[in-house]
């Protein structure tokens, strides 16, 4: 209880200092008046009574001070005093302050900037109502698959079955299918924008309200909702845009509404600009294997209040198993619920890995920067021993001295923190500018929120305390007499303290260098990946005939003459067709098994597949391992044939020659005639996966399965010797010449596709490289600082030795010997620490051991060189010490 009473008293005094001062004054007056009355009572004269009373009361000023000092006011008063003193001290050495603040700002800024990316991608919830109640339905399908952002898409009809069967657990089930549109509005030329085909209740389920106009009422109305950004940039924020007609893939849509600012779809990796009802038109885009194109969708729903995800999963799974798929070749094993997050679960791991590495590298830079500051503070602490001793001698408590020094470093770190935060604002924007390239157009909002601010604050406070405390403790431990006597009473203890610091600084630097080295080597190995084709000189172009009312026969005729014309272009070596753009994240897969039952039974795998024309293999220089590639001779009159990759061959026939074997997939048996070297198909950092290629001439074998409109969207691969831009222009010309209404949906060099796929790795490698370099620079400065200081402390000793006849070389050797010992110890400790630390980050590494010998040899070598130079320069300087002045300086 006494604590509560005491605290209440202190708090009230602290909160109302003026009132309290008035109360004290009133109390004093009261006392004096009563005393004077008493004096008069015993017969004193009027003025004498007053005087006696005052005298009896004692020193009023002192009393006031005393009382104030005792109560909580003391804290803030002392703090203000410390603050003023700290600012004064720091201003007296602007060089030190500037260097320290700049170093800290660099470390805190880099770390906070990277964190704001982590925040924007992984931590910030979706800008929708109660995002934690939203779940994707992910069907586990075999047979025909279309994957989007790690989620299996399902036919629209099947989505309706889910909606019917899950009413008890979802307050709303919506569906989406992201694609790109050619947008034309007014007289401006058409541009490509990202958009989504969505069910009419999409916005309702998300809990997003229109900023302007309305959202959809039916799944088939020809209406479009614009994103706030598109409305601003393309329509200049004109409120009259509602009701106007714009053209998407040449089809008229009435603008129904505008989405609120900040909402751009359900994933941070894709910034959507338009939404249209899913059944509003026979749109193409990425298609399903059913003939009904563009209507395969990714379903998601909002759980009813009180419904647990586990229960909902059971209901969804039951529906998945009860309702048979529309396509005969597909089977559904079940369905799961996955939380809807701004980065889809499939991308999450890779994202965590890259951001984790970059964040770790930035944090190491901060650690080195902080260690440098601690080193500087420590050196200052020693230099200020006389000041400390004087303050101790005149009665300052040791606790008070520590507080004072902590306040100083707090001010320093706070300045660094503020500078770092400002730097982070700028750096984060710089980083965010890379994101569109990283994700193919997504715009990331890295505006710092409270979480980023809190992160910067915690970071600043933690480093400030961690690295400010040791120097403060050290400095306050001044030994009075020697410090006052000549200001140079350096016992063996302080020398040992400095040596420990040199070792620690070196060790930390080793950890930094090893860690960044491992990261960079991991990323390098990712960059050196073999895509399985030769991308140099290859141009990719996609053409879509679906919006132009083609049927299969006309479509086939169109593509045949297109290939013929393009092949005849000057400079073109070969041209071929395929369905998909490599490494674009769009793939189609099918289950496949050997037609013959082997000794170990049948193995079934799921393989990525594509259907190509004969020119494809030459255009891509696909490396053949065995057998032959497909040719024009493989047509519908021939045997159905297939070319597989090494992984597929190994999975199905581990110990046998795959050539001549038959596989069962896509409603037919196919003879394996060739084996391709493994490549990358879906994404650049995928694990090796099974892949198979069919001949376009044999499409009739799978026609019942894939439907007639399947063949209306194709991708051209063209190998040329002339510049890509020129070829692309010529391809566009050829397409226009064949049909003026058809446009090339997309065209670029294959090297750009691969570059883009490798962009995250490249960005991460570059960032970590920069951080590593800055860290190394800081570490070098730090090591130089502590070693140079270490040597400078021995100036007097060198003076004596030189005076006694030692030669310069002897002094250098002595310094170097001492330095070498510290360096060896530091490196050894650092290597041990690095081995422990890299084990922690081994989850971020791939293709490389956490104890990678190259890194573990090169990193210490670099540091040894740095440290030796840092030792040698002050040693050289030491030899030029003039004995007389060295001795006199003391």
């Amino acid at each position: 209880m006494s604590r509560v009473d005491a605290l209440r008293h202190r708090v009230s005094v602290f909160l109302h200092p003026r009132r309290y001062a008035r109360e004290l004054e009133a109390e004093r007056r009261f006392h004096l008046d009563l005393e004077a009355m008493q004096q008069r009572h015993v017969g004193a004269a009027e003025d004498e009574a007053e005087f006696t009373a005052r005298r009896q009361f004692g020193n009023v000023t002192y009393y006031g001070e005393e009382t104030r000092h005792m109560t909580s006011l003391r804290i803030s008063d002392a703090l203000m005093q410390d603050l003023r003193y700290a600012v004064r001290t720091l201003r007296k050495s602007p060089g030190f302050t500037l260097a320290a603040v700049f170093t800290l700002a660099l470390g805190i800024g880099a770390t906070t900037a990277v964190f704001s990316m982590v925040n924007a991608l992984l931590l910030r919830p979706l800008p929708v109502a109660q995002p934690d109640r939203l779940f994707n339905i992910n069907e586990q399908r075999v047979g025909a698959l279309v994957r989007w952002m790690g989620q299996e898409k399902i036919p629209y009809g099947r989505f309706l079955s889910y909606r019917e069967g899950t009413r008890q657990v979802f307050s709303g089930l919506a569906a989406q299918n992201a694609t790109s549109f050619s947008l034309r509005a007014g007289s401006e030329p058409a541009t490509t924008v990202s958009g989504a085909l969505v069910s009419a209740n999409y916005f309702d389920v998300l809990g997003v309200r229109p900023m302007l106009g309305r959202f959809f009422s039916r799944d088939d109305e020809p209406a479009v909702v614009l994103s706030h950004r598109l409305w601003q940039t393309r329509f200049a924020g004109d409120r009259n845009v509602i009701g106007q007609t714009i053209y998407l893939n040449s089809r008229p849509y009435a603008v129904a509404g505008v989405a609120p600012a900040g909402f751009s779809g359900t994933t941070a990796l894709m910034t959507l600009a338009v939404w249209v009802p899913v059944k509003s038109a026979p749109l193409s885009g990425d298609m399903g294997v059913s003939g009904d194109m563009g209507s395969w969708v990714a379903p998601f729903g909002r759980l009813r209040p009180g419904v647990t995800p586990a229960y909902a999963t059971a209901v969804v799974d039951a529906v998945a198993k009860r309702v048979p798929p529309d396509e005969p070749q597909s089977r559904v094993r079940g369905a799961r619920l996955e939380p809807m997050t701004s980065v889809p679960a499939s991308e999450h791991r890779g994202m965590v890995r890259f951001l984790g590495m970059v964040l770790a590298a930035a944090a190491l830079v901060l650690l080195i920067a902080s260690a440098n500051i601690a080193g500087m503070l420590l050196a200052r602490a020693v230099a200020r021993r006389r000041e400390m001793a004087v303050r101790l001698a005149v009665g300052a408590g040791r606790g008070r001295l520590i507080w004072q020094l902590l306040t100083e470093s707090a001010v320093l770190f706070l300045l660094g923190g503020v500078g770092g935060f400002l730097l982070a604002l700028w750096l984060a924007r710089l980083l965010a500018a890379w994101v569109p390239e990283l994700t193919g157009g997504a715009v990331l909002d890295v505006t710092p929120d409270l979480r980023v601010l809190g992160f910067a604050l915690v970071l600043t406070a933690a480093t400030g305390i961690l690295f400010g405390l040791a120097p403060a403790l050290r400095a306050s431990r001044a030994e009075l007499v020697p410090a006052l006597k000549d200001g140079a009473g350096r016992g063996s203890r302080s020398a040992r303290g400095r040596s420990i610091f040199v070792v620690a600084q070196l060790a930390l630097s080793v950890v930094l260098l090893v860690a960044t080295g491992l990261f960079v080597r991991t990323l390098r190995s990712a960059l050196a990946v073999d895509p399985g084709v030769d991308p140099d000189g290859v141009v990719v172009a996609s053409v879509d005939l679906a919006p132009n009312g083609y049927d299969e026969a006309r479509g086939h005729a169109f593509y045949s003459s297109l290939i013929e014309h393009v092949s005849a272009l000057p400079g073109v070596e070969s041209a071929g067709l395929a369905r998909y753009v490599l490494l674009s994240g769009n793939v189609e897969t099918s289950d496949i098994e050997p037609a013959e039952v082997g000794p170990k039974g049948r193995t079934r795998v799921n393989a990525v597949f594509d259907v190509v024309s004969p020119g494809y293999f030459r255009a891509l220089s696909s490396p053949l391992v065995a057998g032959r590639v497909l040719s024009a001779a493989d047509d519908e009159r021939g045997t159905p044939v297939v070319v597989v990759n090494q992984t597929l061959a190994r999975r199905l026939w581990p110990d046998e020659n795959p050539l001549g074997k038959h596989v069962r997939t896509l409603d037919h048996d196919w003879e394996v005639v060739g084996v391709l070297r493994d490549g990358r198909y879906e994404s650049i950092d995928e694990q090796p996966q099974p892949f198979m290629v069919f001949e376009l001439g044999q499409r009739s074998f799978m026609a019942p399965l894939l439907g007639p409109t399947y063949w209306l969207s194709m991708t051209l691969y063209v190998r040329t010797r002339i510049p890509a831009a020129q070829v692309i222009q010529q391809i566009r010309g050829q397409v226009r010449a064949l049909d003026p209404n058809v446009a090339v949906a997309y065209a670029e060099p294959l090297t750009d596709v691969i570059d883009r796929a490798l962009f995250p790795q490249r960005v991460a490698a570059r960032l970590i490289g920069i951080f590593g370099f800055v860290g190394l620079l800081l570490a070098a400065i730090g090591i130089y600082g502590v070693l140079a200081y270490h040597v400078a402390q021995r100036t007097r000793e060198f003076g004596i030795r030189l005076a006694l006849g030692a030669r310069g070389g002897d002094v250098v050797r002595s310094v170097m010997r001492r330095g070498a010992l510290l360096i060896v110890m530091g490196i050894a400790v650092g290597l041990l620490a690095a081995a422990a630390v890299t084990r922690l980050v081994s989850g971020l590494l791939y293709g490389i051991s956490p104890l990678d010998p190259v890194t573990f040899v090169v990193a210490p070598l670099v540091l040894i060189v740095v440290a030796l130079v840092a030792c040698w320069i002050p040693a050289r300087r030491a030899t030029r010490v003039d004995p007389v002045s060295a001795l006199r300086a003391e």
Partner: protein
Amino acid sequence: MPTRADRPKSPLLQGTLDLLILQTLSLGPLHGYAIAQHIARRSQGVLQVEQGSLYPALERLLNKGWVTATWKQSPTKRQARYYTLTASGRKQLGEARSSYDRVAAAIGRVLGRA
């Protein structure tokens, strides 16, 4: 009638002021002046609490939570700050008393007056 200044005064033993205040307040809430008067009167003028040290002592007791202070009207119709002993103050008084008794007895023994 001799004035107070003429009487021989004794400096307070260190730490005993708190004890005296707590003891005085155990009789009931009092203002500062009354506390000083009470101590002077009970010690027959031997123990003079220098008022300048009385209030800091009271502040100290407030900070420890042994007493609380409230403003009330005094018999002279003026507002005065009255100090009241808290439960923990009472406990502290008991402890301080017994410790004082032990010390006093010990000093007595040393001085050969056992």
